[in-house]
């Protein structure tokens, strides 16, 4: 019962956040760029629920716009990681032998780098920008999806319906696409929902350090880095932006947890690893 209730809470938060980042900015009376040099660094009020920044811009509007930017970056990165990782993992598990050893060796190598170190390293190699952050997120999550897809495929490889498809002579890509993929998709989606939350944290962290999205693009990390500049004078910009991010991630995490509990029990073990 409790599980269902927390999952419902997660779903509600996620829906509110999704509505906020898609339609919210349009409903606000301000724009993310309009400067107002009379209301500079105003504390939270009814007119500005999260206060204003050093250019007099409404922080809530910026967070809604920034949330969309960060979420899209994370979504693109995770989608790329999920597609490449799933293909790699499924191919490795299906072929086995030397192919599996080689592919998973590469995956394990990537997996052994601390995630943020890998992202940071990539930013130096690629340069700083929106696409580069998305690519860095993709590379951080690629090994996770590859491992998951490989473990899941291994579990299902010897199932009777897969064996049957093999016996009637279906080609391997068709078996993988039509018999195995539909059965591991839900587990991959659960992982993706959690990865999207952490992708937002990676974006925010990189941009916060100044090594990710560059201003004036208002991603969540950029807004928080901005708030750090005048943290002593106006602590609410950084504090409340981070709080908003935490609530959004809380929603995604609760939803992900709930989905994980609903996942096929046979595959649950692989999800946890």
């Amino acid at each position, binding site marked *: 019962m*409790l599980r269902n209730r*927390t999952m419902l809470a997660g779903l509600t938060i996620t829906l509110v956040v999704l509505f906020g980042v898609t339609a919210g900015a349009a409903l606000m009376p301000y724009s993310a760029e309009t400067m107002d040099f009379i209301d500079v660094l105003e504390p939270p009020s009814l007119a500005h629920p999260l206060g204003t920044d050093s250019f007099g811009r409404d922080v809530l509007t910026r967070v809604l716009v920034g949330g969309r930017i960060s979420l899209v970056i994370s979504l693109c990165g995770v989608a790329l990681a999920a597609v490449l990782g799933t293909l790699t993992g499924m191919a490795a598990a299906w072929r086995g032998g030397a192919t599996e050893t080689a592919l998973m*060796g590469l995956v*394990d*190598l990537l*997996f*052994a*780098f*601390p*995630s*943020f*170190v*890998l*992202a*940071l*390293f*990539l*930013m*130096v*190699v*690629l*340069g700083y920008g929106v696409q580069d952050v998305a690519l860095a997120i993709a590379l951080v999550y690629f090994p996770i999806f590859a491992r998951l897809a490989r473990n899941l495929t291994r579990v299902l490889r010897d199932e009777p319906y897969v064996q049957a498809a093999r016996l009637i002579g279906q080609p391997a890509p068709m078996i993988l696409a039509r018999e195995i993929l539909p059965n591991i998709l839900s587990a991959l989606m659960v992982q993706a929902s959690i990865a999207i*939350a952490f992708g937002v*944290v990676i974006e*925010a*962290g990189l941009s*916060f*350090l*100044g*090594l990710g999205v560059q201003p004036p693009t208002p991603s969540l990390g950029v807004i*928080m880095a901005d708030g*750090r500049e005048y*943290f002593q004078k106006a*602590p609410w910009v*950084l*504090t409340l932006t*981070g709080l908003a*991010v*935490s*609530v959004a*991630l*809380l929603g995604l*995490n*609760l939803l992900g*947890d709930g989905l994980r509990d609903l996942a096929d029990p046979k595959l649950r073990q692989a999800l946890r690893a």
Partner: protein
Amino acid sequence: MDVRALTQGGVRRALVLAATLIAGALAVFFAMKAAPGDPALTALGENARPDLVAAFRHAHHLDLPVSAQFALWIGGAARGDFGQSLTLAGGVPVASLIATRLPVTAFIGAYALVLAVALSLVIGTVSALQRGRLADTIGTSFAVLGVSMPDFWLGYVLIFFLALNFPVFPSYGFVSPTASLRGALLSGFLPALAIAAPMAAVFARTLRAALLEVLHREYVTVARSLGFGPRFVFFHYVMRNALIPYVTVLGLQVRYLLGGVVVIERIFGIPGMGSLMVDGAFGRDYPVVQACALTFLAIVLLTNLLVDALCARLDPRRAA
């Protein structure tokens, strides 16, 4: 125990470790070579005199073919020589930079790990034993909250609420443990806590789930029916078995812990490996970034080895 099988396993692991490190070095080196920008121009400025650029290239072996550069670099790295810093500290050997920074990161990382383990042991155990009651709800809520807060933001909130109200914890800077252990523990507390909070959350969830699973095993019921005290049953039957998944997750999370160290060091102004790598990234100091990435890789690989050994000790079935 079969000593020969153990040493064979040890040798195989050492070989895999060495191969992974070499593969990592290859990947790091060639990715760096593909990076845009000319290290010589980065170090000397865009309008440097051509003869100076040529001399710089020659001094840092940048005029050699890439494969020869790699051979030189990895040969040096094997002997602990990572070349010279280009922009951060022109001409200073990277190895000596790392030698001064690594102990600081090791201290902060270990501090964070100890905090995370202590917090999670308490929270995980209490939630499992008080399942469904208030303490469990509080504990599991903390666990979900902990993973939802970005660590760098938590660092700032800690500075804002703790450091500014309790001057015992400095908000910036770090005292070396060799200078003053008390100073190091105090100045490292907030950064370590910021890194530890999300870790503690993950560990506590793992421990709670593992304890709940073991609590209802038949051998626990048998032990109880044999008349062993609850404390004895808990420590010898329940905890002992729940620790195996716990330690495994501990090992898996070390890479996230080190990732957190990178950001947090920078925020709290701690002169460790993380801030070295970030400074290197800003200055496009390629040898420094390369060496840092490889050092972090080595730390993770060594920790994995340690965790595997620990798991084998905890779970004799796995040692075979």
